[in-house]
């Protein structure tokens, strides 16, 4: 049956309600099993030895003493993970990041690993591994890394995307460009121009659960991996590629996941754990320490961004331009490109140009972090937009409303928008009570907008109907924030049965077809689309079974309110059959009843949000507190509003942390100074007020219920919203995130000196 995903307005019974989540009891009783909560018989403890140098050639590794230590069962180095990438640069980068080959590229880069009978033997074994390094000059700053005299990390990197192609290697991996119109002509028409440079520091996703896995490779070529991941199918593929395993013989089971935010979409030590198990012939449990998590997983890009925006006195933006430089760690990614794409996505611009520069540096390999690359770009653009509005004497909200993109606008990154939420979120902000609430002494208000694409992707769902009419759906998108509840709601809605009759589970990779990761805010969007499709297929089967039970034509049977109903004058006396009625007879009518769906979920509706932030700044210390915060965002359709609000609040607070205090601090030696929660300062409970939310619902035309992804957009506006609020509070513009107390106080001092 062809699946029609298009939106149809309808009365909804389950979708939009707030039932208790299905995994709640397990999680409040300590029974839910996360990455480190699983054990196998005979399991060893795995640990990784990491480079203390930011950049160093590995001259020699001697593992003989470690191997000789009693209780050590395996020691692996790059030699145990041979390069099978066949020239694929992305695969090689993953491999080299898992275990350094010729060079250690950052402080924390893995160089060897051990598996031993317990933690203390493993710890002792690490100390017995001798690594001889030739320390090389390093570079961690994005602007410094682009300079002609910077130490070059990789002699094979020649900037792509520039004409003519450069003849010498550099740290600039690629250039990307987006936009339309003629920005020079546009600036010529402007009455006022703001041109600034902005910087943001590197942050970490900061999930509370460190990376953890249990790996087992058997002698017959089969293997198992229990792991906290956002994408078990992707982990399976990558691990199989790196280790030369058959994809179908490696079963990956995703544990409950203790936060990911993009950081668990990439493999880290999992291939190493598998290599250790293969060598030792025993299962290996490998759990990163918090220090390892900070030094060797995660982070986002540090950036340096130039913005130039011009506007007429009436508030019309005539041209907008941005040059965005993003660090990617030692290996090129697409981080600057994403930043360049998202920069001006909120606005309807006649002339716009963005250029992204991807820069390799001696920092950990950059990983996705919630709307990756968008928050930094939004900080720069929304700060400049704010300043420009003030300069032409226009209210910052009205200025944005005047220039907001809408249905039919050509976006700055190419596509033409359908129905979108930027205008409505701005209008909602303008009329929100927060906007007109009085401010106290040293308090200021800021606002900012944000955009994220949202993704769809490959999705597969199995729906099985039990003999009693209750339903199980098996999905392949890991539940990172309550999606089992939302997917159960959607399944219940489509079948016409109560929420309580549906149980959603996350299947392992051997039990279900391939699924892309839970990333790009796709979990509920894509899996619900597949769940609806599977439910519709199951309904078709149930109609056929009802036809058999009644001995009438299936064409005379409709599905309504969870029942098969016979239509037409000749069937008046047939009482509707419930799912349970039909399921009870399944053994006599053709066997178990199931619905299945595999699809590529296209048409993930883009997402916009507008945030309002009040801060109070102590002008004598630069200390800044967020005292009120409001998130307004388009959800398309909020399936389970509690968890939509949760996404808005959580993303906003991550953004607040990024704005105020979170940053990687490197010493002159290129070593990370703050690899722990003590000095990498994520927001704590007492730092924050309640986070107010307002959900707008502008249906996504490409989803049966209008659902859009909601997970990521909320982290995009806060950096600028906070900085704009600080500016409003103490009348000093901040160009460097985080706006930590020393930076604010220095800015205030500079201003006082004139």
């Amino acid at each position: 049956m062809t699946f029609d995903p298009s939106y149809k307005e309808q009365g909804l019974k389950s979708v939009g309600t707030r039932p208790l989540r299905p995994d709640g009891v397990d999680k409040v009783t300590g029974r839910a099993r996360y990455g480190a909560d699983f054990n196998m018989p005979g399991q060893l403890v795995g640990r990784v030895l990491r480079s203390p140098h930011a950049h160093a050639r590995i001259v020699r590794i001697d593992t003989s003493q470690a191997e000789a230590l009693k209780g050590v069962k395996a020691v692996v180095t790059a030699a145990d993970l041979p390069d099978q990438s066949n020239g694929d640069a992305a695969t090689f980068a993953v491999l080299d990041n898992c275990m350094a080959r010729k060079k250690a590229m950052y402080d924390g880069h893995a160089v060897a690993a051990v598996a031993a009978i317990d933690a203390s033997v493993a710890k002792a074994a690490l100390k017995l591994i001798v690594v001889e390094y030739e320390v090389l000059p390093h570079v961690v700053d994005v602007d410094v890394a682009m300079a002609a005299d910077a130490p070059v990390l990789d002699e094979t990197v020649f900037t792509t995307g520039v004409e003519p192609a450069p003849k010498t290697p550099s740290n600039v991996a690629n250039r990307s460009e987006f936009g339309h119109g003629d920005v020079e002509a546009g600036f010529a028409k402007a009455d006022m121009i703001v041109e600034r440079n902005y910087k943001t520091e590197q942050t970490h996703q900061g999930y509370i659960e460190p990376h953890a896995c249990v790996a087992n490779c058997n002698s017959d070529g089969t293997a198992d991996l229990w792991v906290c991941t956002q994408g078990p199918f992707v982990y399976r593929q990558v691990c199989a590629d790196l280790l030369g395993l058959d994809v179908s013989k490696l079963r990956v089971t995703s544990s409950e996941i203790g936060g990911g935010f993009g950081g668990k979409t990439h493999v880290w030590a999992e291939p190493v754990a598998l290599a250790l198990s293969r060598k030792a012939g025993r299962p290996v449990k490998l759990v990163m320490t918090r220090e390892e998590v900070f030094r060797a997983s995660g982070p986002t890009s540090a950036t340096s961004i130039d913005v130039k925006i011009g506007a007429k006195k009436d508030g019309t933006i005539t041209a907008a331009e941005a040059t965005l430089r993003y660090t990617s760690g030692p290996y090129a990614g697409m981080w600057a490109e994403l930043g360049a794409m998202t920069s001006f996505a909120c606005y309807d611009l006649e002339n716009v140009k963005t250029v992204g520069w991807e820069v390799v540096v001696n920092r950990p390999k950059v990983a996705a972090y919630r709307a990756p690359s968008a928050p930094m770009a939004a900080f720069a653009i929304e700060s400049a937009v704010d300043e420009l509005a003030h300069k032409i004497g226009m209210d910052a909200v009205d200025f944005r409303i005047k220039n907001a993109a809408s249905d039919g606008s050509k976006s700055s990154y190419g596509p033409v928008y359908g129905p979108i939420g930027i205008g409505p979120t701005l209008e909602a902000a303008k009329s929100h009570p927060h906007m007109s609430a009085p401010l106290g002494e040293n308090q200021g208000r800021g606002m900012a907008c944000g955009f994220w694409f949202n993704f769809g992707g490959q999705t597969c769902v199995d729906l099985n109907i039990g003999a009693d009419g209750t339903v199980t759906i098996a999905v392949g998108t890991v539940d990172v924030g309550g999606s089992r509840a939302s997917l159960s709601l959607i399944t219940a809605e489509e079948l016409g049965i109560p929420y309580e009759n549906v149980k959603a589970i996350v299947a392992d990779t051997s039990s279900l077809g391939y699924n892309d990761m839970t990333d790009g805010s796709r979990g509920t969007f894509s899996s619900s689309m597949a769940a609806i499709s599977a439910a519709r297929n199951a309904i078709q089967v149930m109609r056929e079974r009802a036809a058999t039970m009644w001995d009438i034509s299936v064409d005379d049977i409709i599905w309504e309110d969870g029942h098969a109903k016979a239509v037409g004058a000749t069937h008046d006396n047939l009482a509707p059959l419930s799912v349970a009625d039909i399921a009870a007879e399944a053994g006599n009518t053709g066997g178990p009843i199931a619905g299945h769906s595999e699809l590529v979920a296209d048409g993930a509706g883009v997402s916009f949000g507008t945030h309002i932030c009040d801060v109070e700044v102590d002008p004598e210390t630069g200390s800044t507190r967020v005292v009120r915060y409001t998130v307004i965002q388009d959800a398309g359709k909020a399936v389970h509003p509690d968890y939509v609000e949760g996404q808005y609040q959580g993303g906003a607070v991550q953004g607040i942390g990024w704005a105020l205090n979170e940053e990687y601090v490197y010493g002159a030696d290129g070593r990370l100074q703050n690899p722990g929660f003590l000095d990498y300062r994520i927001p704590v409970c007492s730092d924050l007020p309640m986070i107010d939310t307002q959900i707008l619902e502008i249906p996504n035309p490409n989803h049966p219920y209008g659902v859009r992804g909601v997970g990521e957009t909320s982290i995009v506006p806060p950096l600028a919203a906070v900085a704009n609020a600080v500016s409003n509070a103490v009348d000093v513009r901040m160009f460097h995130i985080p706006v930590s107390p020393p930076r604010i106080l220095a800015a205030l001092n500079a201003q006082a000196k004139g």
Partner: protein
Amino acid sequence: MTSIAVSTTINGDDVEFLCNADETLLDVLRNRLGLMGAKEGCGTGDCGACSTIMDGRVVCSCLVLGAETQGREIETIEGMSEGQDLHPLQAKFIEHAALQCGICTPGFLMAAKALLAAHPDPSEEEIRFWLAGNLCRCTGYDKIVRAVQGAAAEMRGAKT
């Protein structure tokens, strides 16, 4: 390394275990006693995911040696509900959607339980400062604070 024999009380039950001198209570709970509800988020007392209650005070079990628990009374998340009856805090956390990934939840529940034992009617500010040692990266804390407020109100009501 010679093991130390320890007799203690966990969730009201007498428990005996052997541990090494440098082994933490968290390691003992998770690796020796199968009580894996306490989570290790940092191992240095900065995240609160391993919170347990020792002699009535909430502690990070990663900062307590197993050997120190001799003769003490330990409460863990596994002892919070009575049979199938959830503690009001547990019920309110689910009801208020106060968890997303849930890794921090056992620690929050232990800390909140100690809070309500000491302060049955805490202000929002008291809740926020008491729970400042429990990191949550998913929720932004809003719904957690509301769940604790809800449980406090229910527990006060239940007492009168």
